[in-house]
């Protein structure tokens, strides 16, 4: 096994610059980073510090200007748009702050979406999606449309969609931003459980109490990795 297989996300001297010439703005980097399987990493930092840029890169929604980004061992630079899409639907699950769901699909159809995109027969995709919905305790609302769900329920559906299938990496961009604390905590609990089953989770938040659910907290400032708290390995036992 190569070294790549041990890291789910690897950033090597990554820089992302938006625009060019006079108007070029460096949104991120240079930054190097390794995130391994089963890790729960939170990224914090003030607005405009490059959190979301980092997440877009990790989510194969964007390519670096300089340096290399490897997701599940695959260098984004070598992938076509179609291969990037394939990576997104097989390896990565994404949860955004809001507007995660397609309003024209029911909850279960939204969850089944990546599987269906991947060519699963509809019935099979729905069966798997139904399990995922049960995982976020929403099986009762499977046939509702997003507009008929509360914000917290919508986020849980989005998380179920990010879980569904055997995907290794879950990326969450302020998933609790639009939710109250108790509902937000339920979302964090779901993310944590997911991680404890061996999947990697990267969470962008500006909320320390949510970041505390992670094993490792990265601080970004002005696009640079500025501070890091926590252990690479999930800590064992509780301290008082």
């Amino acid at each position, binding site marked *: 096994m190569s070294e790549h297989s041990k890291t789910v996300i690897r950033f090597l001297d990554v820089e992302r610059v938006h625009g060019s010439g006079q108007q070029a703005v460096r949104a991120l980097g240079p930054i190097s980073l390794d995130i391994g399987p089963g890790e729960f990493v939170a990224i914090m930092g003030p607005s405009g510090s490059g959190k*979301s840029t980092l997440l877009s890169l990790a989510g194969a929604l964007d390519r670096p200007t300089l340096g290399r980004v490897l997701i599940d061992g695959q260098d984004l630079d070598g992938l076509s748009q179609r291969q990037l899409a*394939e990576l997104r639907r*097989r390896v990565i699950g994404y949860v955004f702050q809001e507007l995660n769901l397609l309003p024209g699909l029911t909850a279960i159809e939204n969850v089944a979406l990546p599987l269906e995109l991947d060519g699963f027969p509809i019935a099979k995709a729905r069966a798997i999606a139904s399990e995922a919905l049960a995982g976020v305790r929403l099986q009762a609302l499977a046939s509702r449309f997003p*507009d008929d769900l509360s914000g917290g329920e919508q986020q849980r559906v989005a998380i179920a969609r990010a879980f569904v299938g055997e995907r290794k990496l879950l990326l969450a961009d302020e998933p609790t931003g639009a939710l109250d604390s108790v509902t937000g905590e339920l979302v964090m609990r779901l993310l944590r459980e997911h991680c404890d089953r061996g999947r990697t989770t990267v969470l962008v938040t500006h909320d320390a109490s949510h970041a505390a659910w992670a094993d490792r907290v990265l601080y970004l400032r002005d696009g640079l990795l500025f501070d890091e708290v926590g252990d690479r390995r999930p800590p064992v036992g509780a301290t008082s």
Partner: protein
Amino acid sequence: MSTWSHSRALARIEIRELHRHPARSLLVLSLIAIPVAALVGGSTLARITRPTLKEQRTETFGRATLRIEDPRRLEAIAVLELLPPELLTEPVFLSSTHVHVPGRRLAAQHIGLDLKGLAEGILVLQEGRPPVKPRELAISPNLMQSLHLQIGGTVHLGDPNALHTVVGTVADPEALDRPLVLAAPEHFPDSHPAYLLAETSERRVSRAIEGVSENGFLVTARHQMEDTRGFEDAALFVLAGFGFVEAALVISAAFAVSLRRRQREIGLLGSAGASPRGITASLLASAVILATLGAFLGITVGLGVAALLHPHLDQWNGRLNGPFETSPIHVAGACALGLAASIAAATIPARGATRLPIRIALSGRRPPVRGSGKWVLVGTLLVALALALMVAAIRARGLTATLSILAAAVCGVLGFGALSPWLLEQLARFAAPLPLSWRLAVRDAGRFRSRNGPVVTAVLAGMAISVTIAVMLTSLEPLLAGRAPSLRDDQILLTGPAAEECARELARELPVTARAPLSAVYSDGQIVSAALGDRSGFLVVGDASLLRALGYDSGEQALSEGRIVSAGKQLELRIGDRTLETSLQLAPLVPDQPTSGPIAVIGRERLASQGWAPGPPPRQELTPWLLRLRRPVTEEDVDLASVVAARSVSTTVDAAVLHASPRLGMFRIALLLSMTTGLIIIFVATALTSMESAADAAVLHAVGAAPALLRRHTAARAGYLAFLGCVLSIPAGLIPAAGLLPQANVNLAFSLPWPEIAATLIGLPLVAYASTWLVAALRRPRHPRWQPAR
């Protein structure tokens, strides 16, 4: 805040909004401009292409005051003696002939009139000079072309020893494709004039009419001639009115769609303290800005397109069209329509949008869906009203009928438009088993029906008028075609002494399926003529190969059994004035292309038993040979046949392709115009909705949808809405057509325009799908950054 600064702030937001979303503003702009352009262009083209009353009178009278016909067909000299002496008269001769050049023969109308006399204007000289001497002719440009003739060339009219010189070209200004041979009236071979033109002073007209009528002549006066295009007028009126309403609907849809998008923004304005009236006013202000720009653009484009088409119109509708001119009233009307429709169209959704509780508007969620029940009721009532009006119109005549038809058309479109949200909702229920892209399209359209309903209505409005025109065209076509062509498009007719040899030789060169002599049937020297309904022709004698050559692919059995094979059951045979009462056994067959001329076939044995004899067809001395090819005859085939025929003296070739000239009537042009408009409307309206799917596309993209699926997603949305609009446009378009057809003073059978319906149902949605797909594919893969689109 004063009212002024209040409105100023809101107006600034509106103008920024136009700037901020140039693409969307452009789409809304074009949705206003397209109908305005179509109306301006259409009315200008109609004005140019339709004969004015003056032109209609010239066609019949030249510049004469009276037209005198003589049912007794007296010699010209005799006629003149019977007329009041003070009347200045001039004869016009008409007969049919064939123009021969080596290897070719074409049928033509033989006319004798004085181009500069009273008949001036009936025909126009295009090149050369008018024929004055004997053996001088002017012929129509289409004959010149088909016969490869030039001025100074020679032709004969059946007698190879009497060569005529072509001195000029003449054309019928109202029918440029009419094959004509013009001779000086004094040298016309026939001495029976078809009619006389007469001139007298205005005061004496009635006395002259009296005097002429007394002597047993039929006389028509120029000033009595009314516009003969009443039906066309009614149709145009309905189409224009229909166009107005449709334009209003399309514009309204454009605003409705763009306002739904701005729901949240309106909520924000409301929460910032803008008064609902102020918001409505500012939305209206932006409507006026857009409408003014749109109307201006529409007028420019409409006039521009009409001006571009103007030089080509003569070829299309086969007449000498007038100079380019437009009516300021029409332009102003279209402009006012654009403005009025935009303001009216913006008011309703704007009021709806501002009335939405701010809380809901801010949430960005779709407004609570009111049951579409009310709209179903309104829609059903309107459709019922449309049907009732149509039935009323069928029974009525004149202005009442025209207005009822217009009202029926409007009610129909509005009714089906009102039903569209309900339909979208119902269809969305069956979306579950569809593939993803279609499921999303159908579901979305159903859930956001208040936004998608107007798009469907716009498409419906854009296409309904095309359906109406297509029905009229299909129903008019048999009439416009008038006389059926004398040859099928896969037949070649060889005439002359060497016809049989030529036929044999051509059978080696061309894919000939059958060849046979075309012999008429004579009873005691009198030809046996045949009539089938309103078609008249003659009986021919032959065998299976003649049947095949004529286009009957079966019937040999019937022929050998001694029966007469014909194209229909109601065959009537005549010898001279006598109708044959004999019990002829008929075997009716319908050949796939109707032709006139030989309309019934008799076998040789039956011919003998009847005591009849074969002979040449009417007006011919030799028996021609008929060839039928496996495919339509091309010009190259005719050229080849001409070369073969030219080897022997006086042997000529004729084929339908030599007569064919594509002719687009007013309705053809209107159909072309409205189909194009409809297509553009579909494209623009669906482009507007695909902008709405940006948020969905972002989610799909993040979830890992391949680029191809994203394209299909956008395309399916466009295809679905276009399809639904097109489906609804068919009943909406049939209603006014059903009302209009009985208004024609000739009997028009209502026939469905299947090719146009197929194009509307399948072609246009496919085009919408494909073009949206293509646009999505051409768009550079957007930098995939997550930007939640609101």
